[in-house]
């Protein structure tokens, strides 16, 4: 009985210490990324290559899912709005929900699944095959050469992807509302323009996507950098990337929203 309690407490303490250690290690890595900021911009080719890997290759999944999300919003919104005789407000509903919430959040979730896992697996494998140690031996900082370019590529790609998501989503909603359901074309756009504010809605959405980009990329990089150098370790790190990124994005979204919407 006493032995059981003791081992529970030991386990709890061990987890707490490891948690604090991981936060500290992640903060240290984050700090180093900032230290090597100018270093990595001196070789923009590395960043461009990573933007290709994280941004351009994620384009297809983002655009296709944006179109479908927009179409679903159009259908569902119309279904409810026409009960109140205001089906013209469908444009407002689609645009606001995409620009404020779904654009940044769904993009971040897809980004974590598509690009974040790739980053974690790549860096984890680099570590497992001792490529990172080899760099250090050659006096090349792995943070400057491997981590920082991927970080900036993620931070640059995320807002672009989120903006594209919102735009294509609105087009998807338009596609369902106007040609298929038959909502008036002019009312769709003019009501949307009357209610969507550039600063309060669009710019706040961009801010959200930048924050999510920082968080998702940082989690992916840290999990890869911190992964045990085994096949199992890399696979676990990849799983953790998706889980932690998704949780962090959803929790941060609530916090950011509560700051942006002054009640």
């Amino acid at each position, binding site marked *: 009985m006493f032995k059981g309690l003791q081992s529970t407490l030991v386990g709890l303490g061990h987890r707490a210490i490891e948690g604090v250690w991981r936060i500290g290690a992640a903060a240290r890595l984050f700090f180093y990324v900032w230290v090597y900021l100018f270093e990595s911009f001196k070789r923009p080719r590395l960043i461009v290559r990573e933007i290709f890997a994280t941004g*351009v290759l994620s384009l297809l999944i983002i655009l296709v899912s944006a179109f479908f999300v927009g179409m679903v919003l159009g259908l569902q919104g119309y279904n409810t709005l026409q009960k109140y005789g205001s089906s013209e407000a469908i444009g407002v509903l689609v645009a606001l929900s995409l620009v404020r919430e779904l654009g940044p959040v769904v993009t971040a979730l897809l980004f974590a699944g598509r690009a974040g896992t790739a980053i974690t697996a790549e860096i984890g494998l680099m570590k497992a095959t001792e490529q990172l140690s080899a760099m250090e031996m050659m006096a090349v900082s792995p943070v400057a050469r491997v981590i920082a370019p991927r970080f900036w590529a993620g931070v640059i*790609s995320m807002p672009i992807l989120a903006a594209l998501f919102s735009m294509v989503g609105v087009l998807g909603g338009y596609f369902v509302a106007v040609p298929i359901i038959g909502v008036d074309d002019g009312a769709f756009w003019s009501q949307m*323009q009357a209610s969507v504010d*550039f600063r309060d*809605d669009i710019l706040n959405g961009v801010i959200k996507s930048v924050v999510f980009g920082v968080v998702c990329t940082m989690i992916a990089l840290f999990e890869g950098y911190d992964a045990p150098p085994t096949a199992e370790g890399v696979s676990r790190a990849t799983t953790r990337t998706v889980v932690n990124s998704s949780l962090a994005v959803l929790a941060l979204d609530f916090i950011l929203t509560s700051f942006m919407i002054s009640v």
Partner: protein
Amino acid sequence: MERTTVDLWVGVFVALGLAAIFGLALKVGNLTSSNIGDTYTVTAAFENIGGLKPHAPVKSAGVVIGRVDGIVFDSKDYEAKVTIKLDKRYQFPTDTFANIYTAGLLGEQYIGLEAGGEEVQLKNGDKITHTQDAVVLEKMISQFLYNKASDTKSSESTKAAE
């Protein structure tokens, strides 16, 4: 992959992103409509503004000619002081009437201006004195019920007198 191919795709990607932000700003957002060029500011005091919000349109004859800039509560007169930005191209006489209307039954509220007959035009910083408050539905209903009740009462009393 070829170096130039990567560059090309990244260039296309960034250009698409910028185009999307521009598209959002111009086609989805109100960046174009809120930008009404040179403006002048007038104020108007209302006893009740209902659901009027900043950035609400100011219309005359149904045409948007300005926007509500800010709303503050004036604790001296216990009134709402509404600051309105009007397009410089449109001049209004000093006895202009400002009403708060609702677009449709459940729509947003906006300010409607009706020009008066005065010769002198409103200047920057002037105050519109003739205002009409927003229609508050509860007030209207209670007034209606009150009138109805007093009507039936009076008809009953006339019946009793007969």
